[in-house]
């Protein structure tokens, strides 16, 4: 619950950064913050009170195979959000990396990192 709220707050903070900061790098950081917030939200979604990680080790079950599965069902948190968050992280990383590459190239072609200097096309 608290993680969820934190996540949502991070998202809004990230949005704030994206909307107000003028420096390209900071905007990208803002985006990264949004991403992180979303990841937190995802993790929080999967949480079930008092349960452990969805890995069947001795703490969950000493059985093997199907039997272990039967026992584990009541003791672990949701594995799906964990899987999703993994993907989300990677994608966020990829987008951030590409944004940074853009920023570098923009700095080269436009000699500036200020987003206000890149509004030649309009209307």
């Amino acid at each position, binding site marked *: 619950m608290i993680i969820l709220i934190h996540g949502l707050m991070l998202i809004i903070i990230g949005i704030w950064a994206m909307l*107000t900061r003028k420096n390209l790098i900071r905007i990208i950081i803002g985006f990264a913050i*949004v991403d992180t917030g979303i990841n937190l939200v995802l993790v929080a979604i999967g949480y079930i009170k008092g349960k452990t990680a969805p890995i069947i080790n001795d703490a969950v079950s000493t059985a093997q195979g199907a039997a272990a599965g039967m026992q584990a069902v009541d003791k672990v948190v949701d594995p799906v959000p964990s899987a999703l968050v993994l*993907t989300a992280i990677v994608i966020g990383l990829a987008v951030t990396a590409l944004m940074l590459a*853009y920023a570098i190239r923009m700095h080269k072609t436009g000699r500036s990192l200020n987003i206000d200097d890149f509004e030649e096309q309009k209307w």
Partner: protein
Amino acid sequence: MVNPLYLIAVFLAGAFLVPFVDKADRRISLGIFYLALAASVGLSLARLMQADFTAMTESQVFTAGFGAPLSIALGFGFKEAILLSFVNIMGLLAGLYLAKRLARESVQSISLLLLLLLGANGLILTRDIFNGFVFLEILSIATYALIGLKSSKNAMAAGFKYMLAGGLASSFFLIGIAFAYRYTGTLNIDTWINMGVLMSPGYRIALYLIIMAIVIELKPFPANGWALDVYQSAHSGIAAVISTINTGALLFFFYKLLPLLPAEFMPLLAGAGLISFFFSNLVALRQKNAGRLLGYSSTAQTGLIIFVLTGLSGFNLSQSSILMIAAGLFVTNFFAKSGLFWLAGLIKKETTKSWSVLSKNSLLLALFGIFILALTGFPPFPSFFAKVELVRALAGNGAWVSLSALLAGSLLEAVYLLRWLGFAVKKNEEDALIETMPIPKLVSLMFGTVLMILVSLLITTKVYHLSSGMMYPLMAFLAFMIIDFLPMKTKGFIAIGLIAYWGWMFFWGKLLGIGSLFGIILIGGSLVQIFGFMHYKDNKAGLFPLLVMLIFSLGNLLQACTKLEFFLTWEFMTLSSYLLILRGKHAQKAALTYILFSLSGAYLILTGLVLSPSFYHKIPVYLLSDMIQMGLPAAIFLGIGFLIKLGALGVHIWLPESYTEAEDEFTSIMSSVLSKAGVFGLLIVLIMAKDALVANGLITGALGWLGALTAFFGALMAVFQEDVKKLLAYSSMSQLGYIIMGFALMSHLGWVSGLYLAFNHLFFKALIFMAITGVILRTGTRNMYEMGGLIKKMPISFISVLMGIIAVSGVPPLSGFGSKWFIYTSLIEQGHYFQAGLAFFASAIAFLYLYRLIHTVFLGQAKPAQKDVKEAPIWLIIPQAVFIMVIMGISMFPNYITKPISSAVSGFITKPDWLSWTGYNITLASPVLHGNWNGNLVMMVTMGVFGIPLVWLLLVNARVQKVKQFNIVFAAERPDKPWTTHFAHNMFAHYKKALGWLITPKITEFWNNVTEWTHSIAATLSYIYTGNGQTYLLHIFMYVLVIFIIGGVR
């Protein structure tokens, strides 16, 4: 069944392999690239060929050996197969278009393009929401990276803005998915759909975020500044991909998600789509940059498709017909937009005006024309049918606001697209030829075009089952395109032969009633005038295909059986006439005005057709038109549509301009034949709505006055023209006003007079126009005051014009008097005394312009510059001779025309007993009015009273002394420069002093203001696109929030 995973594997393997083998040779990697693309096309087509399209679930494939909710499912049904075929073919073409570029760029670009296609394919295939997210990201990231293909500052900036917006959309999407999973416990779309809609607000918000993410990716107005920048600055090949492949995949994903949404979301999305459509088109009005303009057009089209997918769900419409509409719009945009982007890349011109370079390259110009016309929604392109169906759905369900927005938006779209076409055909000497034409780019362009046409024909014949006869105009067009290289006269005779044969086969003896009358007017009238075109020495490329298409579509108006056939033919006619006008040297603006008014008219006609009861199949419309009784609303829509075509007062703005600027020979056809299509339409409407109109009375009364005012103001405006064609144009308008007046009476006599005048107008106006064509050809000017004394040089033309003006003015003994007599008597008989008075005034005014016409051109003092002018070419004389003979014939024997008209009309309004023919004497003995007219006797008497003095004069005056033109008594001296005494310019100055105040161009001013205001609004709106990436982000947030609040999603 073809496993969709092969598609994914092909792209992935290709993308992973390419950088590896590139170390050896670029040719290998390119080889793999094209192999992968070809394989993807093959796979999707193979799936399309399979006949086992059954239920959706059966065409699903799972992964990892587990069933649906557990593993990720891919759907590969009919819809997917079709869309994927298009997408992958486009991928191949785009790859081809970019061939040179890819050979130079670093190898990653090849992988990126393959992965972009992977993303699109995956997005279309997947049935899992999170998987959709992954593919969406693949698609987006590949696109972001490919925008870097052009490394200008602007492209970079645009790409960055795109990334910000895209990133934001992904964030919304991901948050939405997270919470949706929280509420539903599934990520599989089908399982999810089966669960139904939950009522919890949180769940709704999650759904809202998901769908808005996709909507934002679809670039809705006004949250689409970033997309426009991308379209403007990205490499044309990439822009084409974005506007076709990306949009296609996203739209399909959007469509997949729709069943998840609560019903209340639909109007919201529909509204958003429609707003995007309308406003994108509006803002585009002011756009001068070609790429950006295409961007606006793309977003508009996408908006429209969103509207179709969401807005029609409430109506009683099957899912497949909704999809059919969306598909029609999509496919047209798909090929046309990519073609336009590619063209932009080929000619490398930024502003739309500078596209005039195309005028030097007929192939590219033709392609450009096809794309523009397809986008505008002309037949036979799928967008035409889609719009027809869309209007049918909207009007049929009374969605008037949506319908107006749709039609207004379409019109705005037509404005900028066709204006662009106008720029392109404008010959500009400074333009250099396009020299570099890379073969691969050209191949992509050509292949795309061919594909579009094939798809169009497939849809036309397979889906809408149009009879082949309805396609004759198009076939004739294509056939004449092929033989366009032949010399002018050969083509002319082939055209005459073909049309005559066609008329003989399909019309002769097969038409009944008014059909046969209009058959003579529409087919016969144009047939004779084809001769007029044959005097040209040069080849006049493109003229005959269009002309023949026009004539065929005019004829087909009589063959059309269903509403769709009628409208299709109507649009063929509009299209070909527009292109013919556009052939005029300075006709760009006039043609634009013409087509805009015509399109507005067509939209009204379409709406009216939707509202009217369906026509009988297999029987031409006109035949049973009195069996189909429509209500007033339909009649009003249709009526206004046809009145626009007729150029009635208020909507006549297009008429003088386009008549003047079109090629002279074609103006003749426009005035004499083409306008009769409007007459035909109006008459049909009056027949179909007879009961309702007669019961109401107010509308026909108004129509009558409209006709009278049209007649009056047309005549008055003609008086003050210096341009001979403009004078005749206004004269035509005036004459059509009489026809409207006659029809509005809704009486037997009234309709007879309207039809009689329609015939006469064909003969005398074609006669005059043909003669004047010769004059303009020989003198090289249209200004009457620059001519004079041509009677000596062009006596035959003079005789034609003389006969013509006698007929127009209604002076006995020629047939023109008949039309006056009919119109006055019918008006008085019906008690429309003041309309009759106004009509009388108008026809008196006609004398002014007619005298001016013949005097300033043929009489008075000859100009020295024209002393070597010769008689018009024989080809122009032939139709004149025919028409003179016809006029003399029907003047002498009016029964040959009055009787058939009366009997045709009596099929709809019974001939009253008091109207009778005894010999050539037409007697009117109604209780309220008696009168008679014996055309034959009048002719005899006139010949007598003319012959006797003539003989006398010849006897008395045998030794006449012929003097030179300048030998006149002018204040007792011979003027030094006699031609300066030619009384021509501003001939009716006194009349202008007295009545000039009546023709202050109030209506023109009104339309100009409309244009001005629209453009101002467009300009103001366009300022929301500040170019700042953060502002665009702000737009997106506000967009999402505003719809959230308005829609009360929470």
